[in-house]
């Protein structure tokens, strides 16, 4: 139902650096769960609309008014790394890429 290649692909999509052994375990575990959820195939869902949300409300707006928000200091206080008011992450562009 789900093979190791698919599990590895899904792990990449989910940004999880899984080991080969972990992928193998997920093949078995996800396989069993997917086998169980396949019970849904027994339902007659012809013309049944999907429900994303049970409370019938659409386009909820608030007044377009400026309200207080968190300070930059408060927000950055929880970050693993920050400098000069920004979050710091590892280099994204190759060195010299900005020359090209």
């Amino acid at each position, binding site marked *: 139902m789900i093979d190791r290649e698919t599990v590895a692909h899904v792990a990449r*999509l989910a940004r999880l650096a899984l080991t080969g052994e972990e992928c193998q375990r997920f093949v078995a575990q996800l396989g069993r769960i997917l086998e169980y959820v396949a019970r849904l195939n027994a339902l007659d869902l012809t013309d049944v609309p999907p429900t994303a949300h049970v409370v019938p*409300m659409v386009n909820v707006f608030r007044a377009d008014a400026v309200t207080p928000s968190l300070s930059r200091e408060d927000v950055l206080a929880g970050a693993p790394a920050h400098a000069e008011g920004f979050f710091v992450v590892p280099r994204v562009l190759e060195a010299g890429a900005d020359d090209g």
Partner: protein
Amino acid sequence: MDELAFASARDLVAAYRTGAVRPSQVVELALDRIARLDPILHAFLTVDADGARRAAAAWDARVAGEADALPPLAGVPVAVKDNICTRGIPTTCASRILEGWVPPYDATVVARLRTAGAIVLGKTNLDEFAMGSSTEHSAFGPTRNPWDPARVPGGSSGGSAAAVAAGMVPLALGSDTGGSVRLPAGFCGVVGLKPTYGRVSRYGLVAFASSLDQIGPMARDVADCALLLGVLAGHDPADATSADVPVPDYLAALGAGAAGVRLGVPREAFGAGVAPAVADAVREALRVFADLGCGIEEISLPTIDAALPAYYILAPAEASSNLARYDGVRYGLRVPGDDLSAMVARTRRQGFGAEVQRRIMLGTYALSAGYYEAYYLKAQRARTLVARDFARAFELVDLVVLPVAPTPAFRLGEKADDPLQMYLSDIFTISVNLAGLPGLALPCGMADGLPIGLQLVGRAFEEATVLRVGHAYEQAAGWSRRRPPVG
């Protein structure tokens, strides 16, 4: 002192008014019981002793002078599940990925608690990100059941349920996505309500499955549960899914009794997998309801079997999207990597526990190209059928009666290696989340020293009816007065 430890929030406030008891005494007693019992039970992840003592001292000075104008929870200690943001107090979701994170704001429910006078005593243990039915999936170790420490308290709000059951606090907040307030309430013999979706603001509740998540009150009796719901409920502009529906006085509505209320008992509630002791306790409860003047009718929820498989597509799908935010950039854990994507993937691999990774994988798979229609869309259509089942039932009856769970509390480790068996614990609670309805769990019996839970499900926004009928039952049956053997 035991009497005080098991006093209701209503009785505490009444005793403050007369000067018989001071908030500081109650907070010291709570801290003492936590120091004594929590090495066994592990209900708390953080205890804010200093903050609680300061707040209690401030209420000490006020309760006598303002006896007539006290807010409803003045000086009452409350425990908050650790996936609900508390300004200045760590909020971990029982996950390594958020270990040590201190929120810069209060969730709306916490702000409402403070306005109501409550003292936030600490943060309670849960299955990591509320994903689980036993509280064994906490990264910081499991919580144990006060009725038998070899057994799980249920999950995911297991810490809140154990803290209330063991007389550490009279009130606690849980969250319920597929049964996470009701299952631990049932396993620990306390009262827990999952309100109608939209009844209580989710602002500041760390998101798991946003179309299902709802914060709910937990207490030792229905009246305290009603009192706490009244504090939590109401429209919040900060949560776009919060409903602008008037909030009645739930406590005042309790006295009207249960006579004339029509109860529907789904024939599916006694199906395969339901322990005989659970079925017997629910049948006995029906006799009590009949004596109270309720009408009892057999009904059917034909697609209840579809609820669990639908949930285990929809909730992981929403979770995989919601948990994408844990990337090691803005808060929480960061595991270094050679580049940004390696850092993110290594952070998530090390920061999330096995069950959370399993659900992220399942949800990502269900949403991925080629599988979306086969899984996600199909599950959303099945959700419609589940909601229609309840809608049809509520044309015939006022409330639906179900067990909380097919069995009493199971042993630690019993289902740890079998995710699917664990998921089956939620078979009677999950459909209520899919339909967005209010569900109340309350004790209805004992089996071999373990509590059994009864569930009352009502129409959307009819919490007052659910609580009123639950209160009438509780008064007649008396199960809520039982105390666990610990402490």
